[in-house]
């Protein structure tokens, strides 16, 4: 398959992830959607890596994976902390800060 196809898939996943961030209210799912976006980037990186025949893209993808893991960890930690504080696990209810 042409590299372009992979890229189209990656673009679609990226967009779906973005849409997910917009429509979902649970921070947990939003984190999942962020994973989607990062994965889309990974797919693009790997596809480009294949295209150019160099492994830089793959290395980049691995690093992105690490970062995704870190973000998830911190994000989940936050959610747990919020749950501890008996705060609603719903981004629409987090409106103390506004204006």
């Amino acid at each position: 398959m042409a590299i372009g196809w992979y890229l189209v898939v990656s673009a679609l996943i990226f967009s779906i992830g973005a849409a997910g961030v917009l429509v979902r209210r649970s921070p947990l799912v939003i984190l999942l959607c962020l994973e989607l976006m990062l994965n889309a980037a990974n797919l693009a990186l790997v596809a480009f890596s294949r295209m150019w025949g160099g492994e830089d893209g793959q290395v980049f993808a691995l690093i992105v994976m690490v970062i995704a893991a870190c973000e998830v960890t911190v994000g989940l930690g936050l959610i747990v902390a919020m749950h501890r504080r008996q705060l609603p696990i719903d981004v629409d209810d987090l409106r103390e800060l506004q204006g």
Partner: protein
Amino acid sequence: MTALLPLAAAAHIKGPHIDWASLSPFVVLAGGALLVLLVGLLGSSIARERVVPALSFLTLAATIGCDISRFHHQASIISGALRIDDLALILDLVFAISAVAAVILSAREPAAARAGHGEYHSLLLFSVFGMAVLVSAQNLVTLFIGIELLSIPLYILCASDSRRAASLESGLKYLVIGSVGSATLVYGLALIYGATGSTDFSAIASAITGNSVQAGGLLSDPLLLTGIALSIVGFAFKASIAPFHQWTPDVYEGAPTPITAFMATATKAAAIGVFLRFFDVAVIGTQETWAPLLAALATITIIVGNVGALGQSSMKRILAYSGVGQAGYMLAGVVIGTKLGIDATVFYIATYLPVNIAAFAVIVARQRQRAGGGGEDISALAGLGSRQPWLAWPMTIAMLSLAGIPGTVGFIGKLYLIRALVGGDYTWLAVVIVIGSMISLGYYLRVVATMWMSVPEGEPAPARAAAARPAIAGGSPEADAADTGGWPTPDRAVANAEIAVVAVLFGAAGVLFGIIPSPLLRLVAHAGRSITGIF
């Protein structure tokens, strides 16, 4: 990381040459952060509450020392992952100084105790490390990991005052929006990699300018340009450029104030620094395309930031919006894409640092004094001029400097920016800056007016405050302070001495460099020189 090196040798892979001298700031920072983390685990409260800040302070001081010692030694280290040049070093100084201020301001910060002093300070140091990586980065991977190492500790630090819901809320907001930004950035970087086939800035630059296979074809390639577009968004988010700024006020307000101070100065500097690196090195070839967009973004940012600050009542929000506006000014310096533009931007960052720190220090002081809350409210500043001039003066200087009044360093910063803009044929952007400054007077002067020209509201009725006090609030000096309308009893004033010292020192720097700017100017003049290939 040194432990890994023998392993590499064992596998007969020749590791890259490492210039330890140039790497020293990084080593010091990382080592210091780890040490602080470990010391923080000790049982003794003295170790945690006294030694940890002291160690952090020492680490930062050592970093500053290393930075200074590396001036004029340009080096590209670790297989071209980092470039230690004057631009990077000056920005490193900014980060370190900002972090020093944050460490001092955190001395009695409840968030630090809550998160654990060791964790809190090591996160701060890791963030500084990330910033240093970011502005030195010479390839996309380093850049991305730098930006993440900068951000993730900050997400945590924002949420570290977990007692307050607002702190958690700000942490989550920052995290989500930051991650969207990161994802966008990394997608953009992927596209740039796809278009150029390389992750190195220099290779990217030469691919764009056509020294490579695709001679001349890349300049208007949609793939590359979209990559640049997405990266712009990623950076813009970090620098709080409108319309990617919306997290800023909320996060600044929710985060512990010392962290806000750090974010407001260091993060912004780092983001603008990476703008300089990325746009003036890697993709300088497409300047014709991105410059107008950045100019437009700068315009929007200046307007939105300054206008947004007008009706606010929380000082932290005012400074957040003001920071948005100031980011617009700095971005204007990036747009020019000349050596002068870089100098001006770096200088502006350097001028922005002391006064902003001074302002935040005053807010911290007021928050401490008003234990009952509302210390960050603008009304908490009422009457400060007559009650605590040593706090009122730094705040006044900060506001005037941010507004660009002569005699302060902000004025010289504006001068430099406008000079660069006019010289770079962007006079209209200079006019936009000026219009933004005019709008900004509306709130900067309001703050000053509150301090010097109004009487605190609770002034005549201390009895009412006492009656409203909940029964459990007795017995602590804070509560007593709250009784007297938040004005300090003598010992409270002394307790805030270190904050006042920070405020006064940074405020004084704001005036000193406003009157004698030449040393600072000479310093930043090296920044532009370190980026070759532009004029």
